[in-house]
């Protein structure tokens, strides 16, 4: 199994001297389902940001699909991101646009034609259980439904890697299980899924490889 994501001696130091990640090394294979676990401040979100090229490593290298993310130029970074599905707090839904327009956004960016995009948006919303809600505004939906819209947006462009940062935060157990079930479904069709979470209950109900982090250090890279 080839590595889809590889961290080699990665340190991330933020301005002010705070080390969010220290000498982290691990590999994630193609089609793996992995939890990044640890308490707040462990470095889980930093790992996801480094993979998405939102942050650059201070030391070491981050490879995603054989590309050294730290060396990507501002021009080539968008092409990496189009192969990633992101579900992150930074990627909130756009309240002034409909659910359909929110989900369509990655397809508009990729230049997919309107008819095909419409079909794919409907299919993605159907997959997350929100068929027929295209014309609703996000604020008219519950927290769990909004999270599912964010997932639909993340997968609509058929990414090879799905990254989610605390996707079950603020959701009740039923909604959290529904969301994790969706990630399982995408994993089942070959998508590499990386979820940063400290929701122990959810992880227990949906067991998978865990990479444990604490204060920026990898405590346990888990079994691949």
């Amino acid at each position, binding site marked *: 199994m080839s590595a889809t994501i590889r961290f080699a001696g990665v340190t991330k130091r933020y301005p002010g001297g705070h080390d969010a990640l220290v000498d982290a090394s691990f590999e994630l294979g193609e089609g793996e389902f992995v939890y990044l676990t640890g308490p707040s401040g462990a470095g889980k979100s930093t790992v996801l940001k480094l993979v998405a090229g939102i942050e650059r490593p201070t030391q070491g290298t981050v490879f995603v699909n054989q590309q050294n993310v730290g060396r990507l130029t*501002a021009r080539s970074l*968008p092409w990496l*991101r189009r192969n990633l599905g992101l579900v992150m707090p*930074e*990627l*909130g839904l756009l309240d*002034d646009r409909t659910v359909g327009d929110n989900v369509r*956004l990655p397809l508009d960016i990729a230049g997919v034609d309107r008819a095909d995009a419409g079909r794919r948006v409907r299919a993605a919303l159907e997959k997350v259980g929100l068929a027929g809600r295209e014309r609703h505004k996000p604020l008219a939906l519950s927290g769990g439904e909004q999270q599912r819209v964010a997932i639909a947006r993340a997968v609509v462009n058929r990414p090879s890697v799905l990254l989610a940062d605390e996707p079950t935060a603020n959701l009740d157990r039923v909604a959290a299980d529904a969301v994790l079930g969706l990630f399982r479904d995408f994993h089942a069709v070959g998508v590499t899924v990386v979820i940063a979470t400290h929701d122990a209950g959810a992880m227990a109900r949906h067991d998978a490889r865990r990479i444990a982090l604490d204060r920026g250090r990898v405590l346990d890279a888990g079994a691949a």
Partner: protein
Amino acid sequence: MKALRAYAHALRRAWAIARSTPLLSLLVVVALATALALPMFAAAVAEGALAAVDRIDAKPTVSVFLVAQAGAKERESAERALRALPGVAAVRFVSRDAALAELAALEGMGDLLAGLDGNPLPDTLVATLSDADPGTAAAVTGRIRSIPGVANVQSDVAWVARLAAIARAIRWVGVLLGALMAAAVVAATFAAARLQALTHRQAIAVSTLLGATRRWVARPYVVHGVLQGAAAGLGAAAIVAAALAGLGGILRPTFPAIADLLAVPALPWTLAAVGVGALLGYAGAWLATRDLSSQPAVA
């Protein structure tokens, strides 16, 4: 095909930007239209004046008034001397009786002239010059004065030259205003595009994280700037047309020829205004959005 889809998407987003900030978009168009109208109006007036000068310049003339007691022999002698002068293209004789008849034909002059005992006008030789240059005209006029039998010389070249100078000055002011207002249009579009981008910073941040390029993020704002500039150009053409119509209406009873010259050909001016407006709108919006996606992606 992808590029076309990207522009179609940018056009839809530009329309959404205009709808999300309708008052700002409208006020910017009004401000830009006013800024574009000022140099356009100056240019239109200057072009009208220069066209008038060109028409007059086609036949620069010098009126040579003969002494009152000049007989046919003296007139013929003066005419021969006049024709012999370099720079004189043609000479026409206007008798004092013909001049009086011409004057009497003017509205309101008939009653005035009826009260006179006799004809106070002199015989006149009207010389058409081959060159409208004020220097040449002054030299010719000086020589004419020394011809025996000549009482007075009046040239229309001097005031034509003054009018031309005024028109050139207006045109220069128009060019200066044009440059200043072009900078103002670029600055206004820049500020508006920045403000609109700031309003949509979350959408910009999300699009960037989803893989949008800088161009893709900036394109709707640039298209919006171009559309604003084009609309402002159209507005400026309408303002100038209305102003010229008003000015023409005021001048027509007294100076119909000048009023006619102020009727600027509508289509070329409108197209030019729309084109210039769009270009300046593009410049302002492009400058404002150059670094959009290099700003922190997340507010």
